[in-house]
């Protein structure tokens, strides 16, 4: 396969910069089709231009129709038949390439793979790391930490409408549909934050439904997992104690979970380790105090149509709440 023979693009959300075997194989098939079709396209159009130029009738009148006979068309018949034979052969080449690639993608090993559950919501991603001991199950959102070089099984479905899970540097997309469970096999071989985005139109905020796949060495990943499995740290300063009060006495508890507190609703993202995540609102904004404050006060201005309602609170309440949320590492 001709890898990387197509113009690349060094992005973190592009199929042109594969960082795993899935996207890599697809790029190979892409390159095969790219080169065949590009050459054929050029040849066909050069033939067109040459013939139009050569056979052009230069007067402004329209000449009488020409008589045609099977003899006069004989060479055209040969040329067209030849072109058809070549077309069919090239199509078969690309088709076989496609079958081989599809087969390789389909046969990635499921048995030994590390499983991560992804549940799509309008408009964010719920991520779970199942564990045989249920209390160790990790629940987070919009940030999928994965170990490098390990075969992954992303098991997904949707909680509402159809979404599509797509991190192009890693693997092709897969629709997550209500009523259907699906598995996508993938593996990441390069450390980094690889961006993904919902690729099936899912309503008002389809544009703001991204996530990150954070690939890190296995020991780092295990550390992260262990830390995420912990309950939240109890607030220790008067400000953060009050901040937790604010959280528990406002609408926040109606939708969010912070493990270790009475807040246990599963409508919105789990906030137990909110401060450890780099972005908020499904990749819309960097997770800074300012952004988080704006988000809490009026999410509708930032992501119109999302489920997060505007929240009214005094400035000092907000300060304390933000301080508390900032401790949820």
């Amino acid at each position, binding site marked *: 396969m001709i890898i990387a023979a197509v113009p690349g*693009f060094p*992005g973190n*959300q*592009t199929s*042109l910069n594969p960082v795993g075997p899935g996207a890599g194989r*697809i790029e190979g*098939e892409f390159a095969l*089709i790219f080169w065949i*079709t*590009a050459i054929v*396209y050029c040849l*066909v*159009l050069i033939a*067109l231009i040459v*013939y*139009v130029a050569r*056979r052009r*009738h230069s007067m402004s009148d*329209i*000449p*009488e*129709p*020409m008589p*045609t006979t099977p003899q006069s068309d004989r060479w*055209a018949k040969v040329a*067209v038949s030849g*072109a*058809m034979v070549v*077309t*069919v052969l090239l199509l078969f080449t*690309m*088709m076989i390439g*496609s*079958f081989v*690639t*599809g087969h390789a993608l*389909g046969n990635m090993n499921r048995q030994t793979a590390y499983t991560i559950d992804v549940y799509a919501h309008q408009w964010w991603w719920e991520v779970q790391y199942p564990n045989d001991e249920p209390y160790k199950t990790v629940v987070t959102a919009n940030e999928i930490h994965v170990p490098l070089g390990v075969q992954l099984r992303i098991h997904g479905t949707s909680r*509402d*409408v*159809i979404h599509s899970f*797509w991190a*192009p540097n890693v693997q*092709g997309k*897969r*629709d997550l*549909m*209500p*009523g*259907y469970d*699906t598995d*996508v096999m993938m593996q990441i071989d390069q450390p980094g934050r690889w961006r993904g985005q919902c*690729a*099936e*139109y*899912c*309503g*008002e905020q*389809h*544009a703001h439904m991204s996530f990150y796949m954070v690939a890190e060495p296995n020991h780092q990943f295990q550390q992260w997992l262990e830390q995420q499995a912990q309950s939240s740290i109890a607030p220790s300063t008067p400000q953060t104690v009050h901040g937790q009060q604010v959280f528990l006495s406002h609408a926040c508890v109606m939708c969010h979970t912070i493990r270790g507190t009475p807040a246990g609703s599963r409508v919105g993202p789990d906030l137990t380790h909110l401060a450890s995540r780099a972005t908020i609102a499904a990749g819309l904004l960097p997770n800074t105090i300012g952004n988080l404050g704006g988000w809490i006060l009026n999410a509708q201005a930032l992501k*119109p149509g999302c489920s997060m309602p505007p929240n009214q609170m005094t400035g000092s309440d907000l300060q304390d709440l933000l301080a508390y949320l900032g401790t949820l590492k």
Partner: protein
Amino acid sequence: MITTTAIESTAELTDQERLQAARLESVWREPRGWGWFKAVHHTTIGKRYAVTAFVFFGLAGLLAGGMRLQLAFPEAHILSNDLYNQFFTMHGSTMMFLFAVPMMFEALSVYLVPLMVGTRNIAFPRLNAYSYYLYLFGGLMFYVAFLCNTGADRGWFSYVPLAGPDYGPGKRPDFWAQLITFTEVSGLAVAVEIVVTVFKLRAPGMSLNRIPIFVWGQVVTAFMVIFSLPGVVLSSTMLLLDRTCNTQFFNPAVGGDVLLFQHLFWWFGHPEVYIIFIPGTAVISTIVTTFSRRHVFGYLVLVLSLVATGFMAFGLWVHHMFATGIPQIAESYFTAASMMIAIPTGAQIFCWIATLATGKVVLKTPMWWAIGFFFVFIMGGMTGIFVASVPVDLQVHDTYFVVAHFHYVLIGGAVFPLFGAIAYWFPKVTGRMMSEKLGQATFWLFFIGFNITFFPMHLVGLRGMPRRVYTYPANMGWTTLNQIESLGYVLLFIAVCLLLVNVSRSLRHGAPAGSNPWKAGTLEWATMSPPPHYNFLHLPTVNGREALWDAAPNQPVVVGLDEDVRSFLMTRSLDAEPDTRDEFPRPTIWPFLAAVATSIAFIASIFTPWGITLGAIPVAITMIGWFWPDRQPAEHRRTREIWQSE
């Protein structure tokens, strides 16, 4: 009375022919004034289809401008997300249901097919009028809803459950579902008319192997319409039932299935693409033939390619659903089928190039559009191979790469041929030539603008930009490409304006065209420009594939039809030997009233299921009026036959 099918123009008529023309005119003329609503002649209805479809093309084009403006800047707030989602849904739905099919299939075939097969009107002319009004009312309803902030916003495909009762509140998806009903009823009606016109009303001598390729294209399209449209009517009706009658077809919580909708929708949706571009390729065959000054090379191959495309189109619908995760064996089948569609298309392209290469190429405006078609449409075909391969499709599906792909296919396969067709048939329809200079300027502006707008979409799609997003972050490397695309839109906009200027100027000041300005070979050029309401003074007979080029020196005409009623000749399906005579119905207001009653029923059903039950009553009444036996022509005939037998 045997004369040749020499080109007719009033100046050349004998006194006797003038008298005959006056008699025919008095029988066939269309009512004036309020009679506008009674018109049933195919040229009248065909023009209405074309003008209406062009207006919708303009509206959808303006919506595209709104989208390009919004996407010219990252995280822009020019359009709200709600408005943007309505814009792209309206744009897609309008282009597919209110422009592409009504224009490429309905307008072109209704106007041209009866002329090209040499008859006086389309089969079932009242049904034709009815179907036009339904289409018009459906489109008006859709845009009135849009202006009332009830524009459809769930995509032109309206997948469930997003468009279902739980996630699509309000009435927006209901208006979309009923738009489908309106346009599909109208499309099905025209399909039936075209099939019957082509198989029963051809000029004597036009056996199956002499039917013009344009007509073959439209007849294949008509069959595809008949077989595919029920799929989308079914899915949109089930959606409407889920929304208004609490059925649960698509609700997974109680055993409904969200994938069912996609299968039904794409059973229609894929053939739809071919329904749009088969007429386009048929136009290209016509233009290439006329402007290469020779019979098209490989007539049989071209016809079989059209038929093969029509059949194969029904075996590929799943390639729109590769990302849903389907079994590998099905993947392989649909990949193979999708790639094989390139064979008939490739065969057509090679035949056209062979025709050009062995003819004398006359570079008039229609031919320029045909050349543009080659550049654009073949590119769309090539990117089609990428999306046919399952693994590659999983990366490009629902990205801007696909947006680029299908704009290359559909603008290349429909709009380029359409603009060529406008330049080509404008002299026939209006009797005046369009300006060559303006025409070629329009072509170059449109061609360049098109590529600037849509080529970068391939790149931005490969760089990871999904479709149907109302905005995007600034740091993704997409901004510059999006801005180039938006600039290209400006050129496209100017090009379409220039086309309109050319049309309106030529309507008044264009040089008189005469009956056959391009010295073309098909029958529509055998009559005056514009054609009279009886189409042909002398109904022609046919002696070859290009009727006018192959006409014998004393080619006979059809005689023996009554001239005091709207009589026409029916011929046999295969060899087009004369079979029987029959009469076309006269103009009447009933199809219009029936369309109004049907529209009321359809629109009411958006708000209450009783809309169909109670709405059926006025529909039944108008239908009774429509089919009320009209004895006068029969009386005429009986009197005449008695006279003749004596």
